[in-house]
């Protein structure tokens, strides 16, 4: 399973591609795809958004769905989805009562 991560051009904030081509700030709203066709669709939308100067550094990342929640495989992406592990009051984890799955 994959989702597409990027940073927003104007402020650098981490975003993910949601359904309907919207860029979402909360990983729980990301569009999860399960096959090559889905991946290609995400990449095509991201290429457009990159070309339209909305986002930079688009990248497909591996995730699992655990209890209905999108959890990236790599720690790097889990930290990106939550915020610095040392500052629970900063980043996305501050804006919501996110469960931060670091391990």
């Amino acid at each position, binding site marked *: 399973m994959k989702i597409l991560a990027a*940073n927003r*051009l*104007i402020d650098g*904030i981490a975003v993910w591609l949601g359904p309907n081509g919207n860029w979402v700030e909360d990983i729980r709203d990301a569009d999860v795809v399960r096959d090559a066709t889905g991946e290609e669709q995400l990449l095509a939308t991201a290429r457009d958004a990159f070309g339209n*100067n909305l986002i*930079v550094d688009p990248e497909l990342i591996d995730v699992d769905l655990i209890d209905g929640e999108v959890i990236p495989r790599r720690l790097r992406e889990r930290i990106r989805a939550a*915020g610095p592990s*040392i500052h629970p009051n900063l980043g996305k984890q501050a804006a919501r009562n996110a469960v931060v799955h670091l391990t």
Partner: protein
Amino acid sequence: MYRYDEFDYAVVKARVDQFRDQVARRLSGELTEDQFKPLRLMNGVYLQLHSYMLRIAIPYGTLSSTQLRMLAVIARDYDKGYGHFTTRQNLQFHWPALKDVPDILDKLASVEMHCIQTSGNCIRNVTADHFAGAAADEMADPRPYAEILRQWSSLHPEFSYLPRKFKIAVTGAERDRAAVQVHDIGLHLKKDAEGNLGFTVYVGGGLGRTPFVAKKIRDFLPEQDLLAYVTAILRVYNLEGRRDNKYKARIKILVHETGTAELTALVEKEFAHLKESELKLPESDIRAIETYFAPPVLPHRPEGDAVIARAIAEDAGFAAWARRNLQTHKNPDYASVTISLKGIGEVPGDMSAEQMDVVADLADEFAFSEIRVSHEQNLILPHVARADLKQVYDRLKAADLATANAGLISDMIACPGLDYCALANARSIPIAQGIAERFADQAVQEDIGDLKIKISGCINACGHHHVGHIGILGVEKKGAELYQVTLGGSGDENAALGDIIGRGFAEDEIVDAVDTIVKTYLAHRQDRHESFLSAYQRLGLAPFKEALYGSDAKVA
């Protein structure tokens, strides 16, 4: 302090205007990301995990109270209320929006600061001893030379597209507190037999993927030849350095592959052409720059000893702080104060906007408005009357800035690591916090004595782990964080790279591993005067291996 002249002002102002235009054109789509990325990097703007990061140069680690106050303003108005001091004597903001960066740069320019050459394959911020101009063991203040190098290297057309980045460090004291031997060029100021000032020149030091201690290529370079000689080195590197492989492009690889003798010959040959050129520094110019760095007039304050004796008797916290965080000053009535940014459980090098304001106020009231940033991620008040130390301590304490741990085990270097950095493999900061908490007890720390732990979150080694007495390198193995440990590294005048002890430790094992290493030292040291590093040099890896891995060690 050095004050910008009209050229400095004009250059920095023009650069801000240029970048404002570039950002606008990027946001409108006129510039593509491929076109824009090198431009933003030239202005210190990186993209990290959560956001952009802005890296601000603090030339040779010298800051005024006005500048620090402006950093606090930026932290509050454009970031999340704090900044991070790095091992390069820079300050990084972790959360600026690209659209705001031109305004931030304008604010910085108003206090004579900028982000130029904090990225890219150019000559980076020149670093220096953080006790420069104050330390009792100093031969001469290294900062005038660092400033000359800064002026010469800023936007230098010949050296703006080097094979790789290039770092120069200068120290003027007997003890090397600027780690000059792990820089591309290290300059150690000294006097010859006739009392003339000059430099011992080291080339090709560096950490990262392929660490090297620099090679000495000149015992004594007269001060007037500084620019001619450094130009000669850069010219040889620019022509001969490898551009085919990013990982082999630093001058350390050129020195290694060419051989020190041959490289020295190439440099000396180039130098022979340049020696009598316009690069020769006129004595009057050197002395003119020096006047900017003249120490403040320090009033006679002989009452210090009595005040301190009383404070020590009354306040154990002050006594500990006075034992650890004071550096002997040239003037016996004064001391240099280390403000530890390593409070137990805090993030090494982080400072809140409120704390910045407190330190700026203290600098104005007690320290001639001067502040220094150390490569060990602490701040320094270089000239404080000993008679005022108790007042300074009390005010620092109220701002959580009086941790009495300078040079102790909890005074660690840690890079931002995977909590922020896009290049990281593992986190650094939580490891530093875990170690600091384990050794939080003041008596325990002081019993262990001088011990430098340095932690990097990847092989790029921003946390200088190779030269830590205990070095910790985070790697990723099978999707998990793993920490490799080295022992015996040193970044001082006897620079050495640490030895890898053995297999790495998981995130939940590494603090225990450090604990075991420290206990082994305590068990084996001859007495309290034998430091960790000296004990390691005498004992070697064996007892530490045995303690960490048991009988496995003998097999490994």
